[in-house]
């Protein structure tokens, strides 16, 4: 029990952010017309590529002087993260292009 209390107190800012973000996510998405479900899912998917920051931090401070499994995995983490971010945003943009084209008419 005491451990849980300590854990909560030590991480209270983070827990606050998590709790508020949950409500924020619900709020942001709840009034979306179904027209936009696919692009929104795709856009949200691109944002989940924020893991790329973790990849950069990890590979940034990794020891690259000798070849290691961790080095290879780190490089893959950055490549996969970038695929998620850039691919995700580009594909969302392409989907949304179609909505825009029509607006000019």
């Amino acid at each position, binding site marked *: 029990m005491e451990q849980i209390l300590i854990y909560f107190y030590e991480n209270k800012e983070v827990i606050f952010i998590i709790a508020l973000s949950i409500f*924020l996510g619900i709020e942001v998405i709840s009034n979306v017309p179904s027209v936009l479900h696919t692009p929104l899912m795709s856009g949200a998917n691109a944002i*989940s590529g*924020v893991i790329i920051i973790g990849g950069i931090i990890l590979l940034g401070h990794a020891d690259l002087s000798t070849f290691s499994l961790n080095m290879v995995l780190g490089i893959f983490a*950055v490549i996969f993260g970038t*695929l998620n971010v850039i691919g995700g945003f580009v594909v969302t943009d392409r989907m949304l292009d179609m909505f825009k084209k029509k607006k000019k008419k």
Partner: protein
Amino acid sequence: MNTYIPQIGVTTGEVILEFSYLLAAILFIIGLKLMSHPESAKKGNSWAATGMGLAMITTLFLHRDNSGTTISLINGIVIIVAIIFGGILGTFIAKRIKMTAMPQLVSFFNATGGAASALVALMEYSNPANESSLVTLLGLVIGTVAFSGSMIAYGKLDGKVGDIFAKWTTYLNLFLLALIAVIIVYMLAFEHDMATQTTLSYILLVVALIYGIMFVMPIGGADMPVVISLLNSLTGIAAAMAGFIYHNQAMILGGILVGSAGAILTLLMCKAMNRSLINVIIGAFGGGGAGVDKDQGAIKEITLSDAAVLLTYSQKVVIVPGYGLAVAQAQFVANDLVQLLESKGVEVKFAIHPVAGRMPGHMNVLLAEADVPYTKLVEMDDVNPDMPNTDVTIVIGANDVVNPATLDDPSSPIYGMPIINAHESKNIIVMKRGMGKGYAGIENFLFFDDKTRMLFGNAKDSLQKLVSEIKEL
């Protein structure tokens, strides 16, 4: 730039870095908010992308580890090369893919995000400076499940992977979940040396990989949209877990934002099909033999010229598009038909079922590509009251979303799912390749209805012929 500020014990660079994370988090929120309106959606996407770009650049230049070391030049170059490689590959795939393959692509990109989260967690676990073992292991499991699950969903949508469904898959999945829990508890509750720890984390990775595969495997194709949305939510949570390890607010906020938005989207989709999430996950659409013995009546075909006359002299026409329209790439011809009919004074609307196609909004995207104004796309609840006044309903490559068995046959596996009430309109024309069943594998009694006429063939060919037939009238 990097002067030390003794009052707070950090350098200006670190302050700027944190500030850029704040900015990125705000851009994510505004971006997602703007993305929920058709007019501002494109701008929203760019804003979110800007936030991401900003966070990536500042991290690369300003991040310091616990000992205060910045990212060295060599590491920086390796990172930039990896980013350029991933960026070019991602752009290439995203630009080249056909519109019909969009759902698969989202699933694929989601898999890469899950893989990245899993890899980061895997390596951080063996880092002695990392104190959040539980969060790291959860991130590893969730990221891995999101990866292998999304890859299976991708394979299924692409037609490369079939369904496996048997009672044992449910038990196997429960067993795998329990095994994951046991391994995590064992890893945390006892002291292990470094080698054992690493081995255990790899075992956990493998079990989670198998669980992801077996979790998606039995779920029927009709439920894939729900599954992708759920996996998307998981990827977000996995990214947030990694953010927890680094105490990185931008990662936590971005990840949780996607996690909760994805969860809500998943529930909205389940609601659209009138099913619970548990039901989707455990009770897969099996295409059980329900209702097969019912007297089916006869199928009646219609000739192109009859269809052309019928449509031209109607007042109200409703088109119900489905996956068949997407496969045949018939959205452009469909729009030609609409414009032709409107020039003859017929009122035409598209009725969009929330789960038509392979993703929510799939039809909207396709029809938008063909320049159909989105005011012409009417949602199910708005179109249904008007169905009895509709002269002709044209069903193009849709099946389950117009199956009246959902309304009156409790033995049907999709009983209770709201449908577009095509059967209430005065005439129904069904365009279909053949008498195959829908994605859920269930017989559709609408096709045997007295008011229904079938027009067999590829949707694009049929529509093209229909358009030229109407022009000749």
